């Protein structure tokens, strides 16, 4: 009886086009925002709770990477999920963002950090457009090859041309300390809030884009580009715009990855494996869904942690010594199996399962 729309009538199109047309959804989102922005930081600063829960671990090891990967998954989802252009070069665009932000901070004295991030995203967008040009002639699986070229080339270039890493050995860079509006963002709580704010704003922008003309143009090109052309959609502009915006998101994610998460990065940390990881987030979470990007990121970030804890638990309860590498191999196996499972059974991923769940909830307690 909780999730009924009775009494909620929409009397104009504006009401129908809201982000959250159902009142219960609006309440749920308000609660989520309150918890994320207010309750969690307050809890992290409460001495009583800090003694019991290792907040640093949760921020540094779970929440911050989850948010950053969600942002990268959002970027890839725009390109692959909405515009239908398969990309295996996500990590390369993240690398561009990370190194660009580092260089802006290094070489432009007094530049506001947020501006560095935005500019880093823009640089990534330009690189994205360059490597997206082949998409005008090639499609499908062959386009993935072009993005592979981007992936390998970018990592090579960042290592080879020492200028990018300020002449350090093997291209390692240490991101500068974050200072926003004069405040040092140096504790896990503050970094969490910064990342949360940036990701929230960008997610909202993405949601607006995909429900506007540009989003429809992307989906039209994905579904049938000949028909899209006939309807008057400019194919070239649409595809390049997808590359640009997607790479912008991945670039900002990369900058946050270096500045707010790892602190120290090198080109070798942005290899093909990372691109695959983010692709898995999109497939499992749901291609063509904003929510799906978050669900997929959460899943991929949490699963190894969960397996680790389980393995430890098993070792302690039964006194066994599990073979080393068990968890990492199990992770590979489970990821691989889930990819095949979702592609075969529910290609729209966790997001679709969530939607089905909501539809069932609307009828609850009735079965249909």
């Amino acid at each position: 009886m909780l999730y009924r729309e009775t009494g909620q009538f929409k009397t104009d199109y504006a009401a129908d086009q809201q982000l959250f047309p159902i009142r219960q959804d609006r309440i749920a989102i308000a609660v989520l925002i309150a918890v994320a922005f207010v309750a969690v930081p307050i809890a992290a600063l409460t001495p009583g709770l800090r003694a019991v829960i290792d907040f640093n671990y949760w921020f540094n090891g779970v929440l911050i990477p989850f948010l950053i990967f969600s942002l990268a998954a959002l970027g890839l989802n725009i390109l692959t999920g909405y515009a239908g252009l398969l990309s295996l070069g996500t990590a390369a665009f993240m690398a561009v963002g990370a190194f660009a932000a580092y260089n802006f901070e290094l070489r432009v004295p007094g530049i506001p950090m947020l501006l560095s991030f935005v500019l880093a995203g823009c640089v990534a967008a330009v690189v994205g457009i360059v490597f997206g040009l082949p998409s005008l002639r090639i499609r499908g699986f062959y386009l993935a090859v072009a993005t592979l070229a981007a992936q390998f080339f970018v990592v090579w270039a960042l290592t080879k041309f020492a200028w990018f890493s300020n002449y350090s050995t093997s291209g390692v860079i240490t991101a500068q300390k974050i200072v926003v509006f004069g405040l040092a963002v140096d504790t896990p709580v503050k970094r969490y809030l910064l990342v949360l704010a940036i990701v929230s704003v960008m997610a909202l922008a993405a949601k607006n884009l995909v429900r506007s003309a540009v989003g429809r143009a992307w989906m039209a090109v994905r579904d049938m580009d000949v028909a899209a052309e006939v309807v008057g959609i400019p194919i070239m502009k649409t595809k390049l715009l997808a590359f640009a915006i997607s790479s912008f998101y991945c670039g900002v994610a990369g900058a946050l990855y270096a500045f707010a998460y790892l602190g120290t990065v090198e080109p070798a940390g942005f290899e093909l494996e990372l691109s695959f990881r983010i692709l898995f987030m999109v497939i499992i979470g749901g291609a063509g869904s904003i929510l799906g990007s978050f669900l997929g990121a959460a899943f991929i970030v949490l699963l190894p942690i969960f397996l680790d804890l389980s393995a430890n638990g098993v070792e302690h309860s039964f006194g066994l010594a599990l073979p080393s590498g068990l968890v990492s191999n199990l992770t590979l196996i489970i990821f691989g199996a889930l990819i095949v499972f979702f592609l075969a059974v529910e290609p729209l991923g966790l997001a679709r399962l969530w939607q089905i769940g909501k539809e069932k909830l609307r009828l609850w307690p009735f079965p249909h």
Partner: protein
Amino acid sequence: MQFFFEVLIGGLLAGVMYSLVALGFVLIFKASGVFNFAQGAMVFFAALTTVGFASMGVPFWLAVALALAVMVALAFATERVVLRPLVNQPQITLFMATIGLSFFIEGIAQLAWGANVRALDLGIADEPIEWLMDRTGMNVSKFDLVASGIAAGLVAVLAVFFNKTRTGRALRAVADDHQAALSVGISLQKIWVIVWMTAGFVALVTGLLWGARNGVQFALTFLALKALPVLILGGLDSVAGAIVAGLIFGASEKLAEVYLGPYVGGGIESWFPYVLALGFLLVRPEGLFGERRIDRV
């Protein structure tokens, strides 16, 4: 001049190895229209299984036979669990499914046999061929020659199989259109099992040869990535293309390494084949030997 020939021959022989890798992909692409990203993982798994059994004391020929049996079982399982549920999905979806499959196989392989690098000894030494060395002073490895011979033989057998037999024709029909093949009574399931078994066999041979050369290690899984430019150059659905393109890539890689290497510095081989392949895609997307596609609106 003689040095040039030495490098060239070495390159061509290495190229035959590339052709062998590419062949596994062509087989599956010809029959199911899917680029099997998991081929590299299959090569790794096959080699690792052989070495694993051998290190348990099993005689070598039996280890190979057991590994082959495992690959056959894998083929059946793949058809049942991956291909059947995804019949008639777009190429892209199948490609992503094979990415998932490759992770799965890698995980299983390492879980079963551990992640250490293993040596593989096939009994053929990696030494220069004596009479050639004495006559012309050229250094051509015995191993390379034998490996190329095996690979060439395999390729010839497969080429005949595809073009001259009934099953080969059925395979080509399935590659073209699943639904149409079904409607003329071709059993997709049987065909796919045959194809993946053959690919598994090719993976085993490839794994043994490459493993003997470089050791059986995780890096073998990335063969998929090395083969991609070769396939694009040769055409994804052409056995002849895989052969020719493999030779070209092998030769030019060796030659570039020796003659251009000092100028350009290391590492460009990580991306150069891809950019080359990309160029090809823009100009002649079906590769040197592939079939042109014309779509009707």
